[in-house]
C-alpha cells in the first residue's frame, strides 16, 4: 500500500498543472476559497473547510449561456468548458454535493450542457476530515467525514501522509495514467489498516427519515413563523451552500454585444417568485424560509432520493443572525410521531 507524503502534494499538483485547470483551497485576502492555482505550493492543506463552496467550479456564480454580436444572426453557445479540471482538496461533504447537483442539472429530464460539460471533465480529489468543525453535520444527510461519494479519489489524512482511495472508474484511470496513486486494495476509508479505524464522530442532530416524515405533515405548522422570524432574507445561506442550485437568467446588451447570462439566485429573496401581476406566492420570510427547508429535506428526497443538503455547515457558521438550521430541523424532527 502506497501513501503520499504531505510534502509531495505540491509536486503532484505541479505535475497536473500542465494538463489541467487545478482548483485548490487558497487564501484570498484572508478568506479561504477554492480557486485556480498556478503552482502546486499555493494549495493550502491545513484547513477545516473553505468559506465558499467549490460549487462555482461547476456552476460559476455568473456565466454566459448565449451571446451574439452586431448584425450577425449567429448565436454563440459558450458550452465549451476549456481544459479538463481537477478539484483538489474538496471536503467529502462538498464532493457529495456534486452528486446532488448531478441529479438536478445533468441527469434530469433535460441535460444542462453547461454544467454537464464541466462536470464530465472534472476530476474530484477530496481529502477526508480529521477535525470536523462545530458546525459540521454531514452524517445527518448520509455523508460523513470519510465519505467517498462524489469523489473520484479520496485522500485519507494520516497526518504526515495521505492514503489514497480510488472511488470511481475515472479516478482509477486517472491514478493509472499519472502513476501517482495506488489504491488501498478495496479497503474502505477509515477501515483501520493504518489509523486504527478512527473516524471523527459527528452526532446527527436529527434522524433524516423521521424529519422527512415530520415535514410531510408540517407545511402549515405555525412553527415556521417563529423559527424564521429573525431571518434577514439574505442570500448567504444559499450562496455559500454547495447544493443550492437555483439561478436566474438575465440578458444584457452593451455596445452591440448581446448576452444571456445565468446568475445564482436565492429562494430567500422576495423577487424570486414575484409574478408579473404583482402576486407573490411566497410573500414573506416565513414562506421563503419554509421553502428552503422543505425543498432540501422533503421535496428533494421525494424527487431525487437524496436531501439537498450535505451538512457542510456553512449556512450555520455564516448566518449573520445565527439562525442555525440544525435547530430548525430538530424542532421538527425531534418531535417524533406528533404534529
Amino acid at each position, binding site marked *: 500500500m502506497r501513501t503520499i507524503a504531505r510534502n509531495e502534494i505540491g509536486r503532484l499538483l505541479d505535475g497536473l498543472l500542465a494538463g489541467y485547470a487545478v482548483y485548490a483551497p487558497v487564501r484570498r485576502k484572508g478568506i479561504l476559497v477554492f480557486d485556480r492555482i498556478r503552482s502546486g505550493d499555493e494549495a493550502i492543506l491545513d484547513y477545516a473547510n473553505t468559506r465558499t463552496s467549490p460549487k462555482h467550479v461547476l456552476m460559476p456564480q455568473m456565466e454566459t449561456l448565449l451571446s451574439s454580436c452586431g448584425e450577425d444572426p449567429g448565436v454563440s453557445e459558450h458550452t465549451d468548458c476549456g481544459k479538463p479540471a481537477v478539484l483538489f482538496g474538496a471536503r467529502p461533504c462538498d464532493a457529495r454535493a456534486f452528486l446532488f447537483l448531478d441529479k438536478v442539472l445533468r441527469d434530469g429530464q433535460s441535460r444542462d450542457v453547461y454544467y454537464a460539460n464541466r462536470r464530465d471533465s472534472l476530476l474530484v480529489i477530496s481529502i477526508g476530515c480529521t477535525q470536523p468543525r462545530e458546525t459540521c453535520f454531514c452524517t445527518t444527510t448520509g455523508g460523513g467525514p470519510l465519505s467517498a461519494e462524489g469523489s473520484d479519489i479520496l485522500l485519507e489524512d494520516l497526518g504526515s501522509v495521505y492514503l489514497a482511495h480510488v472511488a470511481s472508474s475515472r479516478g482509477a484511470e486517472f491514478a493509472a495514467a499519472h502513476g501517482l496513486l495506488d489504491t488501498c486494495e478495496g479497503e474502505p476509508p477509515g477501515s483501520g489498516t493504518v489509523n486504527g479505524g478512527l473516524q471523527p464522530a459527528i452526532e446527527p442532530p436529527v434522524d433524516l427519515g423521521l424529519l422527512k416524515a415530520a415535514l410531510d405533515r408540517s407545511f402549515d405548522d405555525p412553527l415556521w413563523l417563529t423559527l424564521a422570524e429573525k431571518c434577514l432574507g439574505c442570500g448567504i445561506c444559499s450562496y455559500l451552500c454547495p447544493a443550492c442550485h437555483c439561478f436566474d437568467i438575465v440578458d444584457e446588451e452593451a455596445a452591440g454585444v448581446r448576452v444571456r447570462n445565468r*446568475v445564482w439566485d436565492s429562494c430567500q429573496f422576495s423577487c424570486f417568485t414575484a409574478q408579473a401581476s404583482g402576486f407573490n406566492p411566497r410573500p414573506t420570510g416565513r414562506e421563503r424560509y419554509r421553502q428552503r427547508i422543505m425543498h432540501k429535506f422533503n421535496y428533494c428526497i421525494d424527487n431525487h432520493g437524496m436531501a439537498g443538503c450535505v451538512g457542510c455547515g456553512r449556512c450555520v457558521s455564516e448566518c*449573520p443572525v445565527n439562525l442555525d438550521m440544525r435547530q430548525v430541523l430538530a424542532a421538527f424532527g425531534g418531535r417524533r410521531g406528533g404534529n
Partner: protein
Amino acid sequence: MTDCTARIREETARLLAEGRVDLVIGFEEGSLPLRATPCFITEPGDTGRLIWNAFCSNNLARYLIRSDRKVGIVAKGCDTRAIVELIKEKQVRREDVVIIGVPCHGMVDPHEVRERFGDIRIQTVEDTGGKLVAGDGTALLSMNREDALHRSCRVCVQRNPVISDVLVGEEVEERTRDEFTDVADFASRSAGERWEYIAGEMSRCIRCNACRNACPLCYCSKCFVDETRPQWVGRGTDPSDVLSFHLMRVLHLAGRCVECGACVRACPMGVDLGTLNRRMSADVARMFGCRPGLDPGKPAPLSTFDPDDPQDFMLEP
C-alpha cells in the same frame, strides 16, 4: 448572570405583563460559541431566554421596520441611533416602541477572537470587562477586550442609548471625539489608489445582499437593485454591477447611516464596507455638521434645504 441580563429579563417581564408591548426583541444564547442571536419574546414566562453579553452585536432596530405591533426592544447606543433615524423618517412611531436601553462596552468580533487564539476549539468565553478569557475545555487563554472589538465599536461615539424608556446598567463614559482617523489614510491616497482598493474589496462580494438586509436604514420596499423595470443594476458579479450596487447604496445612506457596522458584520466575505461608509460619514459630518441618529430634533441634512448648505461638492461652473 450579568446585571444587565437580569434587568433586561425583569423589564421584559414587566412590559409584557402590563400589556405595554406585544413583543420584546432582545438576544438569547447563540447556538455557537462567541454568538448571541436575536430572539422574540411574547410570553412573560420566556424571559429567562434573554441574555446580555459581548456578542449581542446585531442591530435589532432592523426588526422594527414594517412591524405592526407594539414592540419592546433591547438597544445599544448604535441601535438607538438607528431608531432615532427611523422615527425621523416616519418608519417607526415613537409611541409604538418601548426602548430598553443598554449602555454598551463595545461588542466583540468573533473573528478577532478566533484569529488571536488560532485553531483551538473555543467552548467558553468569559468577559471580565478588561479581558476576554476563552476556554477550550482544557486551557484558558486571555486577550484584551479592547483588541477584540468590532471596528465600528472601536470608533463609536455613542455607546449610551440616545433615547430610551428604561435604562438598564450603568452609563458608560463616551470616547473622545471621533476624528475619522480610521479613514484618514484612505482619504489621503490618490484617486487611483482608492479606486484600486475599493475595487479589490468588491471583487470578493458575492451579491448576497446581507449587508443591505442587515442594515436598519435599508428599508425600501423595493431596493433599486431589485428593480427590473427598468433594470438599474445587473444581478451578477460583473465588477461594474457590484460597484454600482455598493456606491449607490452608500450614497443612499448618506446622512442616514448611523455607523453601527451591521453591514460589515453580516458580510460573509469580509468585504471592507466600513471604509466607504465611514468616508461618507466623514463628509456628512464635515459638510453638514451632522452625525445621524445623535440628535432626534435635527432634520436629516440631505432631505432638507438650507441656503447655507455647502456647495463645494458641485462642479465648477
